[in-house]
Structures are given as structure tokens and as C-alpha cells.
């Protein structure tokens, strides 16, 4: 029941908004559909807390500790982003950047995007997971090009082709996975692609095929995570699309793609009994951290700046998952949660700031604090949080990751520490003049939505000081699941 509501509300929202998406009350309808999704996610969570894992719809969908918190997180950020996009998109429409038709497209595709991500997270079928990931790309391509500027068209094309090629590799990986599974589980029915079944027999899967499959799956889904040599689409898509889309791409889509890799890693490690999958995750992760950090220095566009910061953080998370072990995996899951909350909060604040100053360029955004202290503080606190300042949650997770790196992979610790230091300097020196000093900001016709920014930052602060016991239990259970060889 909760499942049905969870997947049906965004789909119904997408249909309704496809018809009414240009009406004056469309943003409210968008928020209402997101609220319904969030309520369904909460109900589902409550059921998991009381009853444990759930299988539904002939085992095609399932919830376990690894995806339950991601479902709730996705629904929550989906709701707050819908709230943020109310005033934001109204201002954009008033400035003549969007016609009613494009507004309809935006609202409808936003809900469809949510639906595809929720399907990807909850499906038990590795084939459906692929289908949902590809659908997530397709539903956002036209959103990246929403403004139809030359730059946004280029970003959209890059996004489509790179992610399309990437996802084709993942399809090949999925075929190989099916090939290996079919030998053990038989081709009857569709059970050979169900993750729960695969997980049961992972020890018998052919290691030679699984290692090849994992390489393709990692490269394929890794393109969507924005892992380093394959990250080219990410900054462009983030910078050129409307800000609510940057927030959900960075906060949610990257997590969902990483989640897909984790599911594959469990199977590959169970079959291979070797460190190959972990080493590959560590390698890609570390490369992303280093490259993401160095590109931070050259950025002049505020959204590109934080897009590169997303690459860096996804690198840290991937590296931590690669290290494995209960502590590092726990920290990586926590980091996934807090990064998603913090980064979307930053995009909300940066979006309002860019609208107030009429430019996304960092040098045109000055002295936010004079005109609107709340947006200024939101950006400042968000940046401090993402840079790993205590007492925010990012500090806790990064601290755990660094300490386990010192114990397990001491060679990587200096690289991580230097990167974090450079990232701090690069971001802080950009954000500081944006917030303080002479102002270039103007008032907006619609009051900015500040509740989402501070709700997110409040949660991140809470996770830095106190993690609710059931959340910690999920993290631990998921860490056991991801255990490593």
C-alpha cells in the first residue's frame, strides 16, 4: 500500500502537471504531489521500523536497510526542492526566461524524475534498476536545456551522450550479470535478475564473468555518479539547468547512481572473494577527490563551483565504500546523507543569491548579508558545513573516514587531507566576499523560500551531534551488508 502510494504520487503528479503545469497554482500542486510522496515514504519508513524488510509486487520491489533511508531522503529533498522552486520559478517566469509551455514541462518532468529515482531505489530487479536510471537521465535532459541558451544546449547534449554511453556500458554489465546468474538460478521466470535471489547465491556466481560485469557496471553507473575521468557532464548540467534541478541532480541523482554501484559491489565481492571491486572504488574515488578539488580553483560560476565540490564529495564517499569495514562504510552512508542535505541547501541559497544579483558569476554576487541576511547566512553556513566544519554532520563523517583511512590505507590519508585543505581554501575565499562587503543584490518580487535551506542545515547540524538510534541501526545493518571481502 505504502509502496503504491510512494510510486503513484509522483507519477500522478507528473500526469496532472503535464496538463495543468502552466497554471498559477501549478507550483503548489507540484509541492502537494511531493508532500504526498514524502508522507508515503514516512509511512513506509514507519513500517520498516516496526516490521523490518519488505518485499512487494512479486518480489520486484523491496526495502532493506541500505535503501530505506535513501528513499526517505529522496522524498524529503524532493519536497523541500519543490517548496524552494515555488518562488524561484515564479521569478524566472516573471523575468521572461520561461514560457508557460516550458513551465509545464518543468513541473511535469520534475515529478517524473522523482518517480524514476524512487523506482531505481526500491526495485529488486537489476534490469529495472537500469531502466529507471536511464529514465532518470531522459527526464532531466530537457530540464537542463530549459532556458534554451547556447550553453544550456551544449550542457544538455553532453549530459545525454555521456550518460547515454555510460548507461549502455551498464546495460552490458547487467547482461553479463544475468548471464552469470542464469547458470545458477535458471532462466525460468525473472528471478535471475532479482537482487535478493542473486545475493543468496552470490558465492556460486562465475567470478570471471562477475569481474567483467562489475567493471562495466562501475564505469556505466560511475558516469552518472560523476566519478573522475567520466565527470565532464556534471558541472555543465548543474550550472546551466534551473537551480532546483541542480539541487536534485547533486543531492539525489548522484546518490541513486552510487547506490546502484553498491548493489553491484555486494554481488561482485561475494563472487570474487578478492579486493578488486574495493580497489577499483578506492581508485576512482581518490581520483575524483583530487581532480574535483583542483578544478575548484578555476571556477567563476557559483553553481559550477559547487558542482565540482559534489564531484569531490562523491569521490570521498566512493573511496570510503572502497575501504570497506564497518566504520568506513558507516561513515560513507552518513556522508551520503549529509552531503545530499547540505549540497541542496547550498544550491537553494546560491539560487536565490544569483537571482537577487542577476548573475551566476561569483564576482557579480557581493554582500548578500546587507540586503538579505538570511540568504547570506544560509550560503555561509552551508559552505562551512560542506567544508567539514564542526559541529555539522559532514565533519563527523569526514572525521570517521579520515581516521579509518589512517588505520587501513595510510598512504591515502595525506592525499585526502591536502585535498580537503585545498577545497576549504578554494571555496571559502570565493564565498566570503559573496556574503560580506558592499552589496550588488536587489529585492525580488517573490520572497525567497528559506525554510528548505534552514531545515536542511538544521538536520545536518543534528546529524553532527546526534544520530537517531534507528538511523544508526540502518547504517550498521547496511554496513554489514556491504561488509567487504
Amino acid at each position, binding site marked *: 500500500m505504502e509502496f503504491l502510494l510512494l510510486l503513484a504520487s509522483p507519477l500522478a503528479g507528473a500526469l496532472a502537471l503535464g496538463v495543468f503545469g502552466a497554471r498559477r497554482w501549478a507550483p503548489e500542486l507540484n509541492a502537494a504531489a511531493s508532500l504526498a510522496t514524502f508522507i508515503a515514504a514516512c509511512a513506509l519508513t514507519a513500517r520498516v521500523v516496526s516490521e523490518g524488510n519488505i518485499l512487494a509486487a512479486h518480489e520486484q520491489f523491496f526495502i532493506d536497510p541500505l535503501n530505506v533511508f535513501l528513499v526517505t531522503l529522496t522524498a524529503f529533498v524532493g519536497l523541500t526542492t519543490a517548496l524552494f522552486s515555488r518562488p524561484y520559478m515564479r521569478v524566472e517566469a516573471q523575468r521572461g526566461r520561461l514560457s508557460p509551455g516550458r513551465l509545464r514541462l518543468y513541473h511535469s518532468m520534475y515529478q517524473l524524475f522523482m518517480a524514476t529515482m524512487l523506482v531505481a531505489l526500491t526495485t529488486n530487479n537489476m534490469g529495472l534498476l*537500469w531502466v529507471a536510471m536511464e*529514465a532518470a537521465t531522459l527526464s532531466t535532459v530537457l530540464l537542463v536545456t530549459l532556458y*534554451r541558451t547556447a550553453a544550456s*544546449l551544449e550542457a544538455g547534449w553532453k549530459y545525454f551522450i555521456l550518460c547515454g554511453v555510460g548507461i549502455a556500458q551498464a546495460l552490458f554489465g547487467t*547482461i553479463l550479470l544475468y548471464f552469470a546468474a542464469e547458470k545458477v538460478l535458471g532462466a525460468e521466470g525473472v528471478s535471475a*535478475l532479482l537482487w535478493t535471489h542473486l545475493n543468496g547465491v552470490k558465492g556460486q556466481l562465475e567470478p570471471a564473468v562477475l569481474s567483467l560485469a562489475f567493471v562495466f557496471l562501475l564505469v556505466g553507473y560511475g558516469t552518472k555518479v560523476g566519478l573522475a575521468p567520466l565527470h565532464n557532464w556534471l558541472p555543465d548540467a548543474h550550472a546551466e539547468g534551473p537551480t532546483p534541478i541542480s539541487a536534485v541532480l547533486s543531492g539525489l541523482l548522484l546518490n541513486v547512481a552510487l547506490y546502484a554501484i553498491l548493489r553491484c559491489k555486494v554481488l561482485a565481492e561475494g563472487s570474487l572473494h578478492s579486493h578488486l571491486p574495493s580497489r577499483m572504488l578506492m581508485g576512482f574515488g581518490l581520483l575524483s577527490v583530487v581532480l574535483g578539488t583542483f578544478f575548484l580553483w578555476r571556477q567563476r560560476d557559483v553553481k559550477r563551483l559547487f558542482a565540482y565540490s559534489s564531484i569531490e564529495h562523491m569521490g570521498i564517499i566512493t573511496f570510503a565504500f572502497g575501504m570497506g569495514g564497518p566504520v568506513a562504510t558507516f561513515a560513507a552512508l552518513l556522508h551520503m546523507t549529509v552531503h545530499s542535505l547540505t549540497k541542496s541547501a547550498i544550491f537553494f541559497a546560491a539560487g536565490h543569491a544569483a537571482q537577487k544579483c*542577476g548573475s551566476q558569476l561569483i564576482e557579480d554576487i557581493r554582500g548578500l548579508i546587507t540586503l538579505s541576511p538570511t540568504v547570506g547566512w544560509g550560503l555561509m553556513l552551508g559552505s562551512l558545513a560542506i567544508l567539514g566544519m564542526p559541529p555539522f554532520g559532514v565533519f563527523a563523517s569526514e572525521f570517521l573516514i579520515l581516521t579509518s583511512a589512517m588505520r587501513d590505507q595510510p598512504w591515502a590519508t595525506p592525499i585526502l587531507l591536502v585535498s580537503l585543505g585545498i577545497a576549504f581554501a578554494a571555496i571559502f575565499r570565493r564565498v566570503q566576499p559573496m556574503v560580506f562587503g558592499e552589496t550588488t543584490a536587489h529585492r525580488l518580487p517573490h520572497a525567497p523560500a528559506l525554510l528548505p535551506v534552514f531545515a536542511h542545515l538544521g538536520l545536518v547540524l543534528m546529524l553532527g551531534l546526534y544520530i537517531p538510534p534507528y538511523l544508526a541501526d540502518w547504517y550498521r545493518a547496511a554496513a554489514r551488508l556491504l561488509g567487504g571481502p
Partner: protein
Amino acid sequence: MTLDLQLLNMCAALLLLLSFAMLAQRRIVILVNLLAVQGAVLFAATLLLAWRTGEHHLYVSAALTLALKVIFLPWLLHRLIRRLEVYWDTETLLNITGTMLVGLLIVVFAFGLAQPISALANTATRSSIGIAVAVVLLSFLTMITRRKAMSQVVGFLSMENGLFFGAMSATYGMPMIVEFGVALDVLVAVLVLGVFFFQIREQFDSLDLHHLEALDERRSAGPPASRGAPPSSGRPPSEGHS
């Protein structure tokens, strides 16, 4: 070796040949026709295999291939070509001879890659897995050596055909629900691209992708004046705020 197996192997060989033809072809109309022929060969192979193995879901996927890859997508692409008036892919990044040589190496590599899989497969068509991998990689090569958006899309679709053929040779096709999902995604992808092409054309008056190379890192690193040169790009400097 029975006749149907020989025919299946011939289909596999034809697919490889068609991939090379695509690699060398500069006229976009012919490129789309080649894609349609590739779809038709794939359809024939699926049908043969369905008849040989008696797997019912292969008939369904053969029908899906016929409807989508032989009829609908080529028709849609031809329509787009006429509407957008793109007929030639003028220059490639590498000349034909060079591309062909690289293609040959890729085929050798593909067979090496597929070796362990073929060794483990127990399907009658396991020898074609190497060809499927080669088709995928050759399509990838087509994509990266072309400038025109339309040729890249044909490469993308041909890659999907190769993957489909690989799934067929290794495991007699994926579960039905997945195949439907993949077909739906491909269909939506091409429709999205159709919309996208019109947007690109509206903006640049051409489908040549080198117009799309402006973004890069230059925008972030260059002097501020170089950024946001077209009036529509970036935000309007400042408008009448209240």
C-alpha cells in the same frame, strides 16, 4: 552444423560488416538506412533463434525489434533529416583509412574480451558473443569520430543493437520486463533527441557539434568578457527589480 545455425552465424557476420559500413559512411541518409538494415538483420536473427529454441519471449522481442528498430526509428530519423536538412557529415576527426584500421584492432580486442564469456556460455550462438562486443565497440568508435549530432545518434542506436545481440547470443535474451523497459527507454530517448535537435537548430542554425564546444572550462577560467557572449546566455545583467 545445421542450416539454421549457419544462417544465424551469417547474420552475425552481416552485423559486423554493417558496423564497418557505418564506420566508413559519410552520408547521413545512408547511415540511417544502414541502421535500418542492421535492425532487420537483428530481427531475422532473433526470429531464427526463437524458431530454433522455441522460446516464446524471443518472438515477442523479435516483433519489438521489427516495430521499433526496422520501421519506427528509421522513419523518425529520416523525417528529422528532411525537416532539419542535414545530409552530409562533412569532416570526421580521423580519416577513413585510419578509422578502419582502428576498427580492425577493436575487433581483435573484442574477441579477446569475449573469450571467457564464450567459453562459459552453453547457448548454440556463443561464438557470436565476440561479434556483439565488436559491434558495440565499433559503434562507440563511430560516435566519437563524428561531428554531426545525427551520426552520433545513429552510433548510439547501433550500440544498443549490438548490446541486444550480445544478450541474445549469450543468454537467449533478457527477461521480458527488462526488454520492454529497454525498448521504452530507447524510444523515449529518440523522441527526446528529436525535440533536442530542433532546439539546437533553433539556437545555432546547424546540427554541427563544433558549435557546441564553447562551454568547456574556458567559461570558468577565461576573462569575464568572454563569458556569456550570446545575449541569451547567462542571466540578464540586471532588470527592473522593485
